[in-house]
């Protein structure tokens, strides 16, 4: 079963020798021990290296990574462009809020229920989307956005008035997530699991199905793929992950308010996958981290430059920055940060040769 596989996919690696079919889809090449060790070391030490503010930002970034990975499966792989990201985050947040804060259910139960609730809502909005294409799916999910945000606003007013729901401190049994440090480790584990799940989906029949259905429906049906089934699974899995992120975010912030989930949030998440790389897990990570940090970096830069802005105008600057970044990437690197990284890596692997693998369109 020896096969010489010349891997020339654009975002892949330069030619690689494979000696079994399993090697063609493995994630772990058995040579990354150094990277793994370095990664673990940095991760373990991270909360002690950075100050409290940066640790807080790291946690926000990790939650954003989970949500972006979820969105990218739906909007990047299955090409079902979703403006319902804020709605799915709200579903997760309020599922956790209602169960955890209002009824005192344990943390794990709330996380799980949030994910299941997200999946159900995803299927619900998926059904009318079955016969629709890109733009129209965006519109149905936009309708979902307003339906859900209205519902949670009404719930919030009825249940706790305007203050928002105060979330309990999660108890894992052996540790309480009261402080940024335990939160960081916990979020890191969750993020790594979600990233692994997304990579697994992409290298399995499930991910291929989604891309096939998005690329050519008639051909996908002729391959024996149930289009409705594939799309609903995409909605369910993606929304479950996003809602999980919503629940994590609610617990982490400590206070849950309906106003958090506005349409700008949904658009910022689309910006994350465009800047990071549509359909790429690495892209989701890079985009989420960059755009989570962007407003803080801007504030930092402006402070350093002696520009003092506040409130509305500051918000405006952030929006302009998001917009400009999306525009720049769409114009100059539609495949996002991930493609830039792959180019750099491939150049490094090939050096001093100049052979470039075929451009990949993924």
């Amino acid at each position, binding site marked *: 079963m020896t096969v010489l596989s010349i891997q020339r996919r654009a975002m892949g690696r330069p030619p690689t020798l494979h000696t*079994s*079919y399993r090697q063609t*889809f493995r994630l772990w090449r058995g040579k990354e021990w150094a990277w793994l060790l370095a990664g673990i070391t940095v991760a373990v030490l991270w909360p002690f290296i950075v100050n409290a503010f940066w640790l807080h930002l790291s946690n926000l970034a990790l939650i954003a990574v989970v949500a972006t990975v979820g969105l990218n499966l739906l909007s990047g792989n299955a090409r079902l462009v979703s403006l319902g990201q804020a709605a799915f985050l709200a579903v997760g947040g309020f599922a956790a809020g209602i169960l955890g804060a209002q009824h005192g259910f344990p943390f794990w139960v709330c996380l799980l229920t949030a994910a299941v609730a997200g999946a159900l809502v995803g299927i619900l909005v998926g059904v009318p989307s079955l016969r629709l294409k890109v733009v129209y799916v965006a519109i149905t999910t936009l309708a979902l956005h307003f339906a859900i945000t209205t519902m949670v606003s009404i719930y919030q007013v009825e249940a706790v008035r305007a203050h928002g729901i105060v979330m309990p401190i999660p108890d894992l049994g052996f540790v309480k997530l009261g402080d940024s440090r335990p939160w960081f480790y916990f979020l890191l584990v969750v993020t790594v699991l979600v990233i692994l799940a997304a990579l697994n989906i992409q290298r399995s029949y499930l991910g291929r199905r989604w891309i096939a259905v998005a690329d050519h429906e008639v051909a996908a049906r002729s391959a024996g793929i149930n289009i409705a089934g594939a799309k609903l699974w995409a909605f369910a899995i993606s929304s479950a992950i996003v809602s999980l992120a919503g629940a994590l975010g609610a617990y982490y912030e400590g206070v849950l308010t309906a106003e958090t989930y506005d349409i700008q949030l949904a658009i910022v998440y689309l910006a994350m996958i465009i800047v990071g790389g549509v359909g790429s897990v690495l892209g989701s990570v890079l985009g989420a981290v960059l755009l989570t940090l962007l407003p803080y970096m801007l504030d930092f830069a402006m402070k350093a430059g002696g520009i003092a802005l506040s409130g509305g105008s500051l918000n405006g600057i952030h929006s302009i920055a998001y917009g400009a970044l999306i525009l720049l990437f769409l114009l100059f690197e539609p495949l996002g940060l991930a493609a830039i990284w792959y180019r750099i890596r491939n150049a490094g692997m090939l050096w001093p040769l100049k052979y470039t693998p075929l451009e990949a369109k993924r």
Partner: protein
Amino acid sequence: MVGMMQTGGQIPTLDVRGLTLRFGSVEVLREVTLQVPSFGITALIGPNGAGKTALLNAVTGIYRPQSGQVLLDSEDITGLPAHVIAKKGIGRSFQHLELFQRLTVIENLLVFRDRHFSGNPLAALWFLGKTARQEAEQRAAAEDVIDFFELWPYRDAVVTGLSYGTQKIIGVTRAMAMSPRLLLLDEPASGLTREEKENLARFILRLRSDWKVPILWIEHDMDLVMDLADRIYVLELGHCIASGTPSEIRDNLEVRKSYLGAT
């Protein structure tokens, strides 16, 4: 009238009986009757707009015929959803390169092996035992088809970047990757160079002799059809006007008048 083709007493793999397909008031197929025996190459010819591709679409469930029957190995599959019919083992290539543009060649093939994958999609999230084993097994099966069609240099290339002729062959390869019990080819030779056509002819003959898959083949290149087909159906204006061996068709006056051109 159309004569019933003798298939040596065997049940035909595909048996189309009196199929009628209408779009509104336009009759695309009228009482089409056609059989694809379990061995050999059955060609379907006819002028543009005769309804050849429509017939494939009606057979594979992309279109729903108004009346008539489609039997696959004497199982009635009329009006079933397209993916259900495909799962029963009808592999199909398309006229206009309906490849999955974001996938590599091998991934295109694996998508067409979709019916050989089983299990709960949630298990794919963790890629445990069965998922991984299945991936390797199906990859091996897809590699057999790659070997057959000599596509080694392209297996890991994203299809978008490949030449038209190569993409066309990949369309046929992909249909065969399904391990189908019936292969439907929709003008696989259109737009190919002379050399690519000869390659294609070689593959089609080997599919017939080595893989013994029954083929229903739509084609406009009469030289190819006359040389390779075991039997031919002629479709005109949605109706079957003749059928027979290549020499019978060549001598058929009606066919010569309407399609081949009187000489």
